[in-house]
Every structure is written in C-alpha cells, then in structure tokens.
C-alpha cells in the first residue's frame, strides 16, 4: 500500500507540474492569440484609413487606385497567413465603404471582390512560391488580380460595352507600378514590424510568466 501511495503522490506531483507547464503554455498561447488579435485589428484599421484617404483623392479613371490597403493585407498574410489576409481585406471593404458611404453600392461590390480575390492570390503565392517571388512580385500579381477582377465585373455587371477594354493598357501599367511600389512598402513594413515584434517577444520571454495581458505587441 505504501509504495502504492508513494506512486500516487508521485503521479499527483507530475500532474501538478504538467498542469503548471500547461498553464504557462496556455498563457503564452493566449498571449500569442491576443497579439494576433491586436495586430490584425491595427492592420485592419490601417487598411481602412488607407482606403478612406484614397477615396478622397480624385482619380482619373474610376477603378484606378493606389491600392495602399494591399500593403496591409500583405503584412497580415506574411504574419498570419491567407485567412487573416482575407479577413483584413474583408474588414477594409466593409468598414471603409461604410465610412465613405458606398456600402452595398456597386463600388462596394467591386472593391470587396477585387480585394478578396487579390488577397487570396497573394496569400497562396506567399505560401507556395515565397522564396521564388519576394513581396514585390507577390504585390504586383495582387495588383493585377485586383484590377482585372474589377474590370471583368464592371464589364459583366455594369457596362457591357467592349469599349472599357480600351482602358486595359492603362490599368495594366498602373497595376504594375502600384504593385511594385506597394511591394516595396510592404517589404519595409514587414522588416520594421519583425524588429518591433521580436523585440517585444524577447521582452516577453525574459519576463516569463509574469507578463500581463496587453503588454507588448
């Protein structure tokens, strides 16, 4: 009986230790989750701001945009993957159009479908062709996807006239330019964020279990 009791105690102790370790794991996991939530919401709001500011700038051709929000979508993809890239893109279209006042209008549908299509393509490219294409290449492909999706939708649903394809060269060249520039910006932003994040992560590890919610990013 005695050894049995000893075994039981041993077992209990082991479980306690396990639980403690689990608890720590839980905490750091939770912390990661919180970090993710915070970063994503920051990214989304950045995307919305870009979207709104861009809407205020008059542009020569209706669906020609800088697509600055794509920078942020790319950052989300780099840090958290396709799904979160889509999420940021979705939130950008929803919140942005509500602010601008185009919610559920034709330009809303254009922006949400263009945004989701390009986020999806960029996400998949990043996952599967990442070392081959840098963020610049991925961003360019994203810009092309965005513009072409919108153009096709405009043709199918809004103006069924072949004349809109006369804009094709303009749209394609500007997609190349904006895609390139957004790619540069995204590379830069990702580098900076990595530095900030790794510093705060490092701090979090140093602080160990004593870290409180909301500290660090």
């Amino acid at each position, binding site marked *: 009986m005695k050894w049995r009791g000893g075994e039981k105690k041993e077992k209990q102790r082991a479980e306690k230790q396990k639980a403690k370790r689990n608890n720590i794991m839980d905490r750091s996991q939770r912390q990661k989750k919180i970090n993710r939530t915070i970063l994503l919401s920051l990214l989304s709001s950045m995307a919305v701001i870009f979207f709104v500011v861009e809407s205020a700038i008059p542009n*020569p051709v209706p669906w020609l945009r800088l697509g600055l929000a794509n920078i942020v979508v790319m950052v989300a993809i780099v840090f958290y993957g396709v799904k979160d890239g889509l999420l940021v893109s979705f939130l950008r279209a929803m919140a942005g159009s509500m602010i601008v006042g185009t919610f559920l209008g034709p330009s809303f549908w254009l922006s949400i479908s263009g945004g989701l299509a390009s986020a999806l393509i960029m996400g998949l490219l990043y996952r599967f062709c990442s070392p081959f294409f840098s963020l610049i290449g991925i961003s360019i492909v994203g810009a092309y996807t965005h513009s072409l999706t919108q153009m096709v939708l405009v043709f199918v649903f809004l103006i069924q006239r072949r004349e809109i394809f006369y804009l094709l060269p303009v749209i394609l060249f500007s997609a190349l330019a904006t895609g390139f520039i957004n790619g540069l910006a995204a590379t830069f932003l990702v580098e900076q964020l990595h530095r900030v994040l790794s510093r705060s992560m490092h701090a979090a590890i140093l602080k160990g279990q004593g870290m409180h919610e909301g500290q660090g990013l």
Partner: protein
Amino acid sequence: MRGALALAFASAVLWLIPSCKLPFTQSARVYQRERFLMGTLVSISVVSDQKDRAMTAMDQAFSVLQDIENQASKRILTSLTSKINRAAGQNGIPVSSPFLEMIAKSLECSKMTHGAFDVTVGPVTELYHFEDGQGVLPDPEAIRQLLPLVDYRNIRIDKELRTVMLTMAGTGIDLGGVAKGFGVDQAVKSLQESGLPAGIVNAGGDIRLFGCKPGQKPWVIGIQHPRQSDKVIASLEITDKSIVTSGDYERFFIQDNVRYHHILDPATGLPARGCQSVTIVSETALFGDALSTGVFVLGPEKGIALIESLPGVEGLIIDQEGKPTVSSGLRSSLVWR
C-alpha cells in the same frame, strides 16, 4: 522612408496617366432586339438601366406588333383585312378600334394627297407579283380592268358601329405599309407606357423614336441611298419623331431597262415615275408611311409643295435624276454623306 518615397512616386505616375473618361455612373444603356414580323425585320432598341425591364417592355411591344399583323395582314385568312376584302360589295365587318383608327387615318391621308396614296391599289399591285420571286409586267388590259376598283372612296367606315365596308365588289385593301407604320406607332406607345425613357422602333425602315440616347444625345438616323445599297445619302439627329422612306429600290424588277417598282400610281396602275425615294419626318410613322407613298406618286414639285403646306412635317425627295429637294425645316439638320 523608402516606402514614403515610393508612394510619392506612385501617385505622381498615376496623375500623369491619361485621363480617359467613362460614363461610369451612368448604367443606362441601349438594348436591342430583332424579330421577323409584318413581312419585314423589326428592330426595337430601348434605353434602360435594367435589362429585364427592357426585355419585358420589348417583348410587349413585339406582341403589340404581332397583334396588328394578325389583324391587318392580307396573307392571314382570318385577319380583318381578309374579311373586309371577302365581304366587298356585300356587308360591313366589325373591327377593333385600333384597326378603325388605322383605316380612318389612311383615308385622311388619301384625301390630303387627292388619292395619290390609296390603300385600295392592292389588287393592281398583286398583278406585278413582287412578293413571289422575279415579278412580272402585267397585261395592260388586266390593269385597265382593275383600275375602276381602285378608289379610296369605296371604303366606308362607321365609327358608331365600328365597321368597315368596301362598297364595290372586287375592291380590296392592302394595308402593307400603313400597318407597318401603325404598328411602329403602337409599339412606341407600348414602350412609353412601360415607363422606358427612350427607344427606337424600326420596322424595315419605318422608324419612330422617342427620348434621347444615354448621355442625353439625340438619335442619329441615316437615309438610305436610293441607288447604292451600301450607302446612306444623308443622316440627321432627331428625337420624338418618326422618319419613313419610300423608295423604288425596295421591291422592283428591271425589264427592258425600265425599273418596275412597287409604288404604283393609283390613277394609272403603273409604277409612279418622278422620284427615286421620299423621306418624311413627321409625328407618327403611320402618317409618314402614307405620306411618303403619296408624295412619291405626286412627284417632286407637287410633293414638296404638299410637305411645306403641312405643319410639323418635313421631307427629303430624291427625284428621278437623283437630285435632292429638302423641305425648309430640314435643311439645317440634314448632314450629307
């Protein structure tokens, strides 16, 4: 820093891009449908911002045209026209009120042109067999025998009882062109009742339009060159009007270097000489169709005098030598090609 510079560069690039303009906000566009009706190709174009609305309205207009064809075609044995022709010299036939209106309007036009336009010329036209194949020059004796039957005054209409009667046995009416014009008018009415802002109904060259094209631009209509089938002789911008051309090039055959065409002079039973084509711009296509035929028969001098005497009616006459005469109100708006 690099990002900011890049962004500045990007915006500069975008601003330099040529500012192509598109009517993006304007989703109203022109929808077009064709059908073979009334012995010709009928094409309807409408302006609408909703496709299904345009389609329903056009279907409705086509069915209006189909109804009129069923009532007016002499090729359809059950049509009112066939019934009236069969009962010639015997009794009146009760007709629908649109049909009565159509007959009454063509009689008005016959009076106006002193019989140069006459729907009772039908039996003589049949002698030429324009409809089936090559066409034949009829025996002058046959024409002479039929001519006494050609008189619009043989048509009696009773507005109270809504009946139409031909008072002389053997007289026949052929509403061909008039029915086309009337159908166009009714189709336009139907489109307008569907609430569409603008459209064109074109039944084999009998055109009536209402409203403006998207972008508030007027419709542009060409006038067929009477001798070169692939050319228009002139064009004009019009709206809320009808434009109809009658020409000797529509149905004809050439025998011994003489062109025998389908616009017959009711007085002689022979193809009217003097014009190659007559274009009438007026309120209704029915009137335009009847008047263009009447003016064609009257010839250039009497014709242009008649056009000038009628308010709200303009016209272009191409005479036998191909020389155009334009009525005063049309001179400034006609663009020669």
